[in-house]
């Protein structure tokens, strides 16, 4: 990021706050109070800050999952489904296997979730690579299948039979330890950060990453080099699915302790949003994931302790995101050049 871009970001934030403030005043509330509660809701005290971290982890992982598939030029809208399947796989391994030491049990749960997530992601991957079936179409549709399938499992064979649509509670050996009690932030945070670093290293500094990026940018070159573009594409999708599955596993192992029917309200779509705003740049993803996590937990604070209705808070957040995406908004220096580079831009689009 250049100095200009930082300025641009700053301007965008200020403008968003101003516009949001005007709306809040217009509705008859105090914007300063509202923003203070937003800030407190995200950062003040262990409970709130923990709440932010708790939301940050799945956002980071699902954003990463999306970015990895984007490296092989697959638009994986299916991370949500992988998250669900990973979650239920981890939950099952967590309650049905007993008597393992903690570390081993956690690894088994995570491993199983990642395998399930990657196998699920392999389906649209294979269809795209070998039959040119559009992956946006298949992943949108397969999300529903995954969610209904977990719903079937949790209400039938894997049900805890307690009246709540959830699996039995996992063994304590399968649970991730909490940090920052009473919030539910947990050691999954460190797993997520480790995965972030690992993925960054893998993509940027290894032969595997070279192949993945190469396939995404030019599959013909890859085939010619002997990387097998199709297979690599499927591998990239499977990596993406594994990370999505991991995100689900951490949710159940760190937060709920069991799989809960319909537990995700579209976490992976928020993750996708983070990745898209970061333009799939892995280095920028944690920043954007944190940004969204802060907005989400801050919004809860604003809703709890001011009279601003939840729906208005949500609308203001949507507006923040819209403005954040408009990178051209304050590129003052670029305005003049815009004219001469219009075709360059068109070219860049191709």
């Amino acid at each position, binding site marked *: 990021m250049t100095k200009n871009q930082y300025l641009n970001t700053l301007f965008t934030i200020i403008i968003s706050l101003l516009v949001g403030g005007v709306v809040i005043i217009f509705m008859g509330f105090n914007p300063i109070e509202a923003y203070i509660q937003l800030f407190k809701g995200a950062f003040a005290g262990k*409970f709130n800050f923990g*709440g932010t971290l*708790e*939301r940050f982890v799945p956002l980071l992982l699902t954003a990463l999952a999306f970015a990895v598939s984007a490296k092989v030029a697959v638009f994986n809208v299916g991370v949500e489904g992988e998250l669900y399947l990973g979650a239920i796989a981890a939950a099952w391994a967590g309650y049905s296997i007993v008597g393992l030491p903690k570390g081993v049990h956690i690894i088994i749960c995570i491993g199983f979730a990642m395998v399930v997530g990657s196998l699920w992601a392999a389906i649209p991957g294979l269809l795209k690579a070998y039959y040119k079936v559009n992956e946006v179409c298949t992943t949108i549709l397969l999300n529903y299948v995954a969610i*209904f399938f977990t*719903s*079937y499992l949790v*209400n039938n064979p894997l*049900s805890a*039979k*307690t*009246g*709540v*649509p959830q699996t039995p509670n996992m063994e304590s050996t399968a649970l991730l330890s909490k940090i920052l009690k*009473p*919030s*539910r932030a947990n050691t999954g945070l460190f797993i997520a950060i480790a995965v972030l670093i690992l993925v960054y290293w893998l993509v940027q500094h290894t032969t595997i990453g070279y192949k993945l990026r190469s396939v995404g940018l030019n599959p013909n070159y890859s085939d010619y080099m002997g990387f097998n573009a199709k297979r690599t594409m499927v591998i990239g999708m499977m990596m993406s699915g594994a990370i999505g599955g991991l995100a689900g596993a951490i*949710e159940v192992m760190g*937060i*709920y302790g069991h799989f*809960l*029917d*319909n*537990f995700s*309200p579209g976490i992976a779509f928020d993750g996708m949003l983070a990745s898209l705003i970061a333009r799939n740049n892995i280095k920028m993803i944690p920043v954007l994931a944190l940004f969204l996590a802060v907005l989400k*937990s801050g919004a*809860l604070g604003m*809703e*709890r*302790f001011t*009279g601003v*209705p*939840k729906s208005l808070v949500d609308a203001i957040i949507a507006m923040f995101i819209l403005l954040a995406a408009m990178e051209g908004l304050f590129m003052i220096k670029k305005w003049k050049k815009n004219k001469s580079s219009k075709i360059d831009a068109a070219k860049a689009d191709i």
Partner: protein
Amino acid sequence: GCSGKTEEANTSQENGQAKESGEPIKVALVLAGFLGDKSFNDSAYEGIKKAQEDFNLEVKVMESKVPSDWESNLVAMAAADYDIVIGVSTQLQDIIKKHASEFSDVKFGIIDAVVDEPNVMSATFAQNEGSFLAGAAAAMFTQKTDIPNVNSEKIIGWVGGMDIPVLHDFLVGYKQGAKHIDPEMKILTSFAGTFNDPLKGKELTLAQYSQGADIVMNVASNTGNGILEAAKETGNYAIGVDLNQDNVYPGSILTSMLKRVDRASYLMVESIAKDSFKGGEVVNMDISNGGVGLTDMSVMKEALGDKFPQDILDKIKELTEEVKSGEIEVESYPGFEKK
């Protein structure tokens, strides 16, 4: 059905029995969904509003359908010194169980589940019993061929929201009630897979009508709006749920199965106001105490005039007594056995 501005914390005029100090009682209602479902959640809020008329309250409603928000909402409200925090859903059972001891000086209420802690009051519902009556009413109604659009086939319908255990508790009662009237009765059942899609509810209901059902029971929250609309649009019939929905489309809705969530939430607030809160208390709302039941069908009676089948009403009364006395034992779904 308008619930007005809901999120604002508003205080009402003071009433005799309220706390001495004149400070309002702080009540937090934590929902596992949103207001506006015209059933379960709205009903809980109705009770609070009723209590607001009687006592001096400060009310906060936390809505969210995001499971990860539930726990943090509940904890935040408990930490913010609310006098009572009421969790409105079976789904909040574990969360309250987990945190009740942490906030030992805060009182909790849980609706539709039981938490056995010294500072928690629970309310459960025998929805299977209410549904039993609804099933019986539907089974009788579907054979009244003199009523417009009622066919001679012994087929009735039932459409649920998500396929989760509590809905099955409704369903077993409904089926048992129908079969009790006529063992040959065929019951079509569908789940929309969501509580939030009225259009899907409508589609499923239309499908059941096309398969010969002429009356369909709604157990689908917001999705149910589509069920009721399908009845109105095709001239067929429906049965409402939770709240009295008879008036939504007068003449299309035979009756509603009431689940008096409002009464439960009122009781909880009242116990604080009157200082009669008993930790660990479980209020069982069933047919015997009027916690579940059917409406009096007066709306339908008016719509049908002398075609109204009075015998249904009589039979329901009879069945109600039989269930009360234990003569009829209504089955329940695993996890919902009477405590």
